[in-house]
């Protein structure tokens, strides 16, 4: 998988044992609560309440989440996969092109500062205030309760971060390389596809993972623009946070289930991007 990834830091810059210690500590801190959620998903509600350990494991939570009458979890996962994948690909494409364009071509200051500034300010707006207007707009377009609406809104809210991130990552590419390509007669489009993109690979992966994750976990817009059949995973999980008490057991099971497709997709997505780019990459 990492055969085409950029080489590791040279031994000179590696942290040695102090670096490894930090990583080990971090892994424990991160996996700890995760292990807790996973064990909770096999407990009954009362075992969770009483903090029982050891406990008798049960599969009933998973059964309830996946096959219960109240649940359309499999369909919800399908919706989430579709929306997250499509919106991630779209925002990466649109965002990277825009970042490249702003950097490479001399746009007047008002265009680049204006666009970047507008996206940043928009990012500061609380999502709550966008729900009403978007609901009305999509309703009028006949797109209420569709996954297309979710894809469009997710691309919009992830665009600021994608553009800014890619701007930062593209800046790491020395301009001489692109200059050399131009001198060699490479067209701007070709230069972008064959030279810039492969070099920006780590950044693309990071931006892609973040866009995917934010779309996958996005809740308020999904809640407001969908109904039962187009609902996504976070909406389904929120159903377990009921009026008086949270059904912790099922919520834990649902959370565990929902991380699996996300991890798988990111894994495969990574390899796909790497392979796709290396096929087109040049010396």
């Amino acid at each position, binding site marked *: 998988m990492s055969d085409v990834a950029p080489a590791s830091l040279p031994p000179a810059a590696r942290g040695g044992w102090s670096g490894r210690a930090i990583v080990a500590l971090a892994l424990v801190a991160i996996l700890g609560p995760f292990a807790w959620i996973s064990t909770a998903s096999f407990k009954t509600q009362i075992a969770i309440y009483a903090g029982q350990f050891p406990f008798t494991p049960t*599969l009933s939570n998973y059964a*309830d989440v996946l*096959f219960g009458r*109240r649940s359309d979890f499999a369909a919800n996962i399908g919706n989430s996969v579709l929306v997250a994948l499509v919106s991630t690909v779209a925002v990466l494409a649109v965002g990277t092109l825009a970042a490249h364009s702003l950097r490479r071509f001399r746009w007047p200051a008002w265009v680049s500062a204006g666009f970047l500034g507008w996206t940043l300010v928009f990012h500061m707006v609380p999502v709550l205030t966008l729900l009403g207007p978007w609901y009305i707009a999509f309703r009028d377009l006949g797109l209420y*309760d569709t996954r297309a609406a979710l894809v469009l809104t997710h691309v919009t809210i992830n665009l600021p971060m994608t553009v800014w991130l890619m701007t930062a990552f593209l800046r790491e590419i020395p301009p001489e390389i692109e200059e050399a390509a131009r001198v060699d007669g490479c067209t701007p489009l070709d230069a972008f596809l064959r030279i810039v993109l492969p070099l920006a690979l780590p950044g693309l992966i990071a931006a892609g993972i973040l866009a995917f994750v934010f779309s996958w976990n996005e809740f308020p817009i999904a*809640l407001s623009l969908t109904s*039962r059949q187009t609902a996504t995973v976070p909406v389904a999980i929120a159903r377990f*946070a009921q009026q008086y*008490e949270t059904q912790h057991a099922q919520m834990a099971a649902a959370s565990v289930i929902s991380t699996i497709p996300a991890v798988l997709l990111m894994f495969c997505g990574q390899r796909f991007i790497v392979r796709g780019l290396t096929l087109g990459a040049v010396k």
Partner: protein
Amino acid sequence: MLTMTTTRAALWAAALTLAAAVAAPAAAQKPFADVGKQPPITILVASTPWYPAFEKVVGLYEQQTGNQVKLDTTPFGGMLEKARNAVRSGKSPYDLMFADTQWTIEFYEGGFLAPLKEIDPAFELPKELLSYGDSGWWNAQKKWRTADGGKLMAYTVLGNVQLLYYRPDVLKQAGIAPPKTWSDVLAACTKLNDPPKSYGFVVRGEKGNGIRYDWQSVMLAEGGAVVKDPAAGDFTVTINSPQAKAALDLYIDLLKKCGPPNYGTLGQGDVIQLLATGKAPMGDVVTAAFASFEDPAKSAVVGKLETLPLPAGRSGSGGAVIGNWNAVVPKNAPEAQQKAALAFSRWFLTSDAQRAFAQAGGIPNRSDVYTSDLAKEPRLRWMPAYLETMKFAKQELGYAEGAQVEQILGLRLNQAAIGEMSSGKALNTAAKDIEELFRKNGRKTGALPPLPE
């Protein structure tokens, strides 16, 4: 409540299929009410503990009448927003919506709903239906929910009041009689309090809706009130009365002397957790939680809890706040579907349907179900306490500023409980803020002389 092990789930599935197979050919069961052929409708309903029971009853309706009902099950946190979006533009995606009592004022005042009798003049509420404080009637002139001069806008789907849950075995062992007044509760719980093994009495102390709702039961029992006479338009703020202060001091005593150290953050889930694990022998909890206490997957005290109506105070009677789900019909739903929604409602309000609802785990809304043989069933043994509580339960904060008043009270009560300010100061501050609020909205208001701080 309906979390089952896989084997039991399989058995249920088998039983249901068998039952369906047997029932279907033998002409569909005679419908509880004759509603005729209706177009399909969509209902906005929250994912709540009683939802599975409702779903079962809807299935029964579909089976008996052949009419289709789609349920859009929404997380509770998203209900209000979805309801608002649905009524504010174009065609409503829902034909029937369940609105929590606190949201009804907004929808009534906004004119978003179709009065039920304008959809079908023959629609009548059965006389056995509990009134739930007339939350379904709206008098537009007085801007008050009352059947007196009001139009029928909604009916109660499910009414939740809180009951006093207790462990007869624990109380008997300590030689304590089941408490009838709040002072009884305080005396009993201080005796039973044995931290960290057991907390004598658990109730919500959480900032916001938690402490406001639970405290108001004590406030009403002690004869306190938030405003003087809102039905008559008199919004004089009376929250800082001596009776209210007595109620607050009593409540803080209960929290401090009988609750866990983190009483200032106890929510409904926490209270249920403490009762279900057996750490608390007494608590103030919603009726809907009873079913979870009887589920071995959710409770360590199955069969051990009993219920009593909420205790009485100096006013001579008990106090309880009604929290009920009201079924409303949006004005912008298509007419044929509005009529279909009412047809379903007529069916749902029959005695047979309510019995089915109760047996499936819901809380029925007709008094004849409570006085029937169903009340004798062991897992429905909360029914007598419920019926008794409904005799004195009241609707609170039934005006447009309700949400803001709750926020003010919810903050100040919590601050008094955790010791950030004295009870007198908390009530005085709340009274001042509430009075300002009413004044800004042009209400006729005033204040009581401030309490000693």
